[in-house]
């Protein structure tokens, strides 16, 4: 098994953590998203849409991360998801909520409010030019995924914040019974959610903080303390939070 991944943030973090938790042996390949390596010909052979991460299993490339996680749940023990039909429904329903509410929004907000301000004017201009020229534009026919400009406008940022706020409210409410999202136990839903939102106490401190979301803060801490998670987060090549450009 092989995993083509970026930093332990977002979807890459989800698969990296799950593989670690299940102690599955695999070969990892770092795809430098900021260096536009996802548009290299060999990666486009794996995924025409230049998606990262991609899980390679027996010559097949699984490029929808939440479904690749479901594959790992069913194909390898420990399962890390309930067996019963209702619990499994909840795992899948959370995946939809998380992907719709957080995936693009966190990346869009992080890119625009953290990454772009870190760049100098010429670096930013150079990046935007490369972004506009990326080959995937011709490949997007038939796909409705957002291929926005490199820099978002105020409306897009406000919408992203709104979607994050709604999703966080659901997570905070979802943790009310016993500290985990599904079935009273740590599961792939927690991993998926953690991967998408472990930087939010710093990215959106007005939304995720001790006062507004105490259960979520505790939940984040509990997950960060897990050896598999600490090990995965420790693999970052950066000393600060990092976000992928949108699209």
């Amino acid at each position, binding site marked *: 098994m092989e995993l083509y991944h970026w930093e332990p943030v977002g979807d890459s973090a989800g698969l990296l953590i799950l593989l670690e938790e299940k102690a599955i042996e695999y070969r990892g390949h770092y795809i430098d998203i900021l260096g536009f390596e996802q548009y290299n010909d060999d990666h486009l052979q794996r995924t025409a849409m230049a998606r990262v991460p991609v899980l390679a299993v027996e010559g097949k490339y699984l490029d*929808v991360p939440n479904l690749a996680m*479901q594959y790992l749940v069913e194909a390898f023990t420990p399962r890390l998801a309930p067996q019963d*039909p209702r619990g499994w429904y909840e795992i899948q329903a959370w995946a*939809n909520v998380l992907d719709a509410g957080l995936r693009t929004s966190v990346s869009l907000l992080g890119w625009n409010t953290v990454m772009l301000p870190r760049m100098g004017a010429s670096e930013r201009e150079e990046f935007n030019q490369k972004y506009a020229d990326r080959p995937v534009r011709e490949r997007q026919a038939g796909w409705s995924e957002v291929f926005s400009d490199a820099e978002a406008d105020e409306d897009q940022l406000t919408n992203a914040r709104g979607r994050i706020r709604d999703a966080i409210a659901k997570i905070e409410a979802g943790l009310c019974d016993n500290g985990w999202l599904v079935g009273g136990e740590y599961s792939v839903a927690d991993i998926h959610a953690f991967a998408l939102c472990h930087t939010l106490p710093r990215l959106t401190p007005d939304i995720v903080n001790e006062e507004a979301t105490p259960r979520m803060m505790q939940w984040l801490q509990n997950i960060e303390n897990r050896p598999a998670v600490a090990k995965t987060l420790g693999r970052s090549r950066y000393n600060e939070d990092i976000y992928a450009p949108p699209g």
Partner: protein
Amino acid sequence: MLELHTWDPNSNSGKPIFTLKEKGVEFEYHHINLLEFEQHSPEYLRINPSGTVPTLIHDGMTFTESTPLCEYIDNVFDGPSLQPDDPMDRYRMRWWCWYIDTQFAPALSVLGWHSFMGPMVRKKDPEEIERLIARIPTKERRIAWSTAVKSSFTEDQLENARGRVNDGIQLMNARLAESEYLACPTYSLADTVAFANAYALPVSVPQFANREKAPDYMAWLDRIYKRPATRQAFEMGRTPLAERALEVIKKLET
């Protein structure tokens, strides 16, 4: 006790109807008329606060995510299995569901609203329409419905949607050239989800969905139209969409 609150056997509304009929499971059908905006009525919002269809209620538990609830139905009830056993085949089944739900259906719904839902709803008094839109629970859905009802799609948006629908038909056609069904050699939930969205394309976009340009897709439609569960599902419908589907079935039988 099994209650299904949903619209006609079409798109998201149709997925659980087709699935329950395939499984041979009895259920109580509560028809929610989207053309009357009944999914945003106070009574319905008490069942499902997000105001979406379908909603399945089983043993007091509520299910509102239309594709995951089909897996639930298949997992919990007796009857023929609608999922392959092999984890990689299941990935492929879910990939098709994902593709249809997140890529294909949004494009198709632009065309559906433009040519069918929009004109039907616009027969109403404009003030009544405003009132109905105002009670939609989320801002995003209010904007989407408002655009759809007024049919304020640009020609560019419509052209883009047509292109994406055609791409989807070609993608299904290519897969169905090598396999009788989308995920694996036998009928699965991937086919249920795809058919619920794509069954009427030979009528709505005949320039793309025809026997010359997409022969394997058309043969797949024929196979699914002929399934007893498909006919039983359309017989529950109450709109011209279902009547039209029953006519197709009648033609295939002769």
